[in-house]
C-alpha cells in the first residue's frame, strides 16, 4: 500500500506529527525496513558464529591442524570474529542511518 494522496499543502511529516492513520502507515514501513535490515545482519552473524561450535566439534582437522604451533580451532575462535563483528556493525549502522535519511526526505517532500 502506497500512501500517495495528500490533502492540499500537507506533507507526510504533518501526518506523522498529527498522528493520523496515514502517518502511522509511513512509520510502519520505516519500522519494517529497519527490522528487515537488522534481521539480515542477524542472519549473517548467526551463519558465521552459529556454525563455528558445530564445525569444531564435527571436523577433527580443525583441532589437529596447527598454524604457528597453535591449533586452527583456537585461531578461528580468537582472531577473526571480533573484526567481523565490528565490520558487520559498522555496515549495519551506515545502512540504518541511510534508511532514516531516506525516510526524512520522503516525509518532508511536498
Amino acid at each position: 500500500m502506497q500512501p500517495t494522496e495528500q490533502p492540499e499543502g500537507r506533507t507526510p511529516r504533518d501526518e506523522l506529527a498529527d498522528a493520523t492513520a496515514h502517518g502511522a502507515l509511513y512509520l510502519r514501513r520505516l519500522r519494517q525496513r529497519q527490522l528487515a535490515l537488522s534481521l539480515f545482519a542477524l542472519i549473517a552473524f548467526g551463519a558465521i558464529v552459529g556454525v563455528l561450535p558445530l564445525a569444531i566439534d564435527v571436523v577433527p582437522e580443525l583441532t589437529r591442524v596447527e598454524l604457528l604451533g597453535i591449533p586452527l580451532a583456537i585461531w578461528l575462535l580468537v582472531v577473526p570474529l571480533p573484526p567481523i563483528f565490528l565490520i558487520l556493525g559498522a555496515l549495519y549502522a551506515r545502512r540504518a542511518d541511510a534508511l532514516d535519511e531516506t525516510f526524512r526526505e520522503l516525509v518532508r517532500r511536498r
Partner: protein
Amino acid sequence: MIAILAVAAVTVGTVGLGAIGTRIARTTSDLLVASRAMTPWWNAAAISGEYLSAASFLGIAGLEMQNGTTALWQSLGFTAGYLALLLFVAAPLRRFGSYTISDFAEARLRSPRLRGLASATVLLIAGFYLVPQLKGAGLTLNVVTGAPYFVGVLLVGLVVAVNVGLGGMRGITYVQAFQFWLKVFAIALPACLLLIHLGGLPARAALFGDEYPRAGAHGLVVQIPAPQPVTFPAATPYTILVSSHGAVTARTFHAFAGELTTLPTGRLRLPADADVPVSSGTTALPGRDWARPVGGSGERSPVFVYSLLIATFLGTMGLPHILVRFYTNPDGPAARHTTVRVLGLLGVFYLFPGIYGALGRVLAPQLYVTGATDTVVLRLPEAAWPGTVGNVLGAITAAGAFAAFLSTSSGLLVSIAGTISHDVWPRISRERTTTGRVRRLRFRLAAVLGMVVPISVAFFAQGVDIAVLVGWAFALAASTFCPLFLLGIWWTRLTAPGAATGMVAGALVATSGIIVGLVLGEPGGVGGALLAQPAIVSVPIAFLTMIVVSLRAAERGSPPDAEMLALHAPEGLDLPETGVRDPFVLGESATRPRFRE
C-alpha cells in the same frame, strides 16, 4: 609493596576523577544521564570500561586454565552481545527517551504494574552482579597484600558508594572511560612482554599434546593453607612438609593414577616433571582435551556452548548498568555509532585474557592444586619473572583488576540507586511534589543504601563461584529484558499481561535450572549442561509466553502508534515530543535536544 601502591593509585585516581565530576555535576540530570551530551568515543570507552568486570578480567583466564579453551566462547559472547544491542535496541531505546528499563516497560505498555516488575528484576540482576565484583575485590586484595577478605570488600564498596553518591553519572562517565584504557594497558602489557620473553608458547605438549600440567624441571613446592582434597591424574611420589614447634617433618607418599586424597595443611613438594594434582571438583585435562574449544560432555558440550552464546548474546542488552549508559548519547544515530565503537574496543581487550589462561597452565601449575585458578592473571607475572620485573607487572594486573571491580560496581550502583530513588521511593513516600534538591538527596541516599545489601551478602558469599553468579545474571537478563525489548520495540501487539507473564516465566525457568543444577551437584551430560546454563531453554519459553499471552488477550487497547513514533521516528523532523516525559530534565531544561536540522 608495589602492588599496594598500584591499587592505591587506582583507587585515589578514581576518587579524584569522581571529585572533578562532582564539581561539574550540579543538576539531577547531570547526576543521572550526564545531561545527554557525551560524544560517542567517550561513551564507548565508558560503556566498555563499565562492562569489563571481574568476570572478564580474572574469570575468563581462570576458567580457561581450569576448564580449557571452551572459556574463550565466553569472551566471544560478551562481545557479540553488543551486536544484538546495536541491531535491535540501541537507537529506538535512545529515541524513546526513557531513563531506566522500568521507564520503558511502563511507557511502552502503559502499565504502572509492569514498572514494578521491571524494577524488581533490575534490582535482582544488578544486585547479583554486584556481589561477585565485591568478592573479586576481597580476593584480589588478599592475594596482593595479604589483607583479610573483608578489607577489599569494604574498600571497594565504600569508594564506589561515595563516588556514585557525589559524582553520579557524569563524574562516573569520565572515570569509566579512564578505567577502560587502564584495563587494556594492564592486561595487554604483561601478556605481550610474556610472549616476547618466552618466544611464543612454551611446553606445547601440556597445552596441545598428551601431557598434564607438570611440575617443571626443578620440581614444585606448593603452600597448602588449609586441608585440600585433590586428585592425582598420574602415579607420582610426593612429599608433605609440616612444620610444628619449629621442627619440619617430611613424609613421602606414593599416589596412584586417579587417587583422590586430602593434603594436610603445610607444603606439598613434587619431584621434577611430576604431573600436578588438581583440587577435587575439577578434572585434570591432558593438553589435547584442554585445547579443544568444544567437544565432550557437561560444560564442554556443544549444547552448553550454544546456550552460553545465547545467554551472552541476548543477555547483554538486559544488563541494567549497560542500558542506562545509552541514555547519555545525544540521539539515536549517536547511540548506534557508540555501539559500533564498543565492538571495536571490546575486541581489542578480549585478545589478551586467553594468553594468561594458557601460560598459567604451563608456568603456574600450583594454582591447580589449591583450585585458585581465578587468580592466574594476578599471579602469572611473578611466576614467570621471580623478582622485581614480576612484582611490577603483577602490580599492574592487580591495578587493572581493581579498576574492573571499581568501574563495574559503579555502573551497577548507579542503576540500583536510580531504580530505588526513581521507582521505589516515590511509591513509598506520600509527598506528591518533589524538588530537584530532594531528588538529588534521594539518589545519594539510595547509592549508600544500595551498597549495604551487596556488601553484606559478599561477606557471606565468600565460597560462591563468581562464574555461577555472572552466568545466572546473564541468563536472567536474556530471559526477561531481552524479549521485553525485542517484542516491545518491534511488535505492536505485545500487551502488558503478555510481557509480565513472559518475564516471570523466563526468570523462573532460568533460576530454577541453575538452582537445581547446584543442588544436584552439577550433573554431567546434556541435562547437566542445560541446568548450568539454561538460556537455550528459558529464552524461547519467555518469547513464546509473551507472544501467546499477548495474542490471546481478550481486549486490545488502541494500537501503540504514539509509542512506535517515539521509538522509530528519525530525528530532525521536528515532531511533537512523545515517548517518556523525562522527569529529570523537565524543570531544569524543558526541551530535549533533537538531532540534525
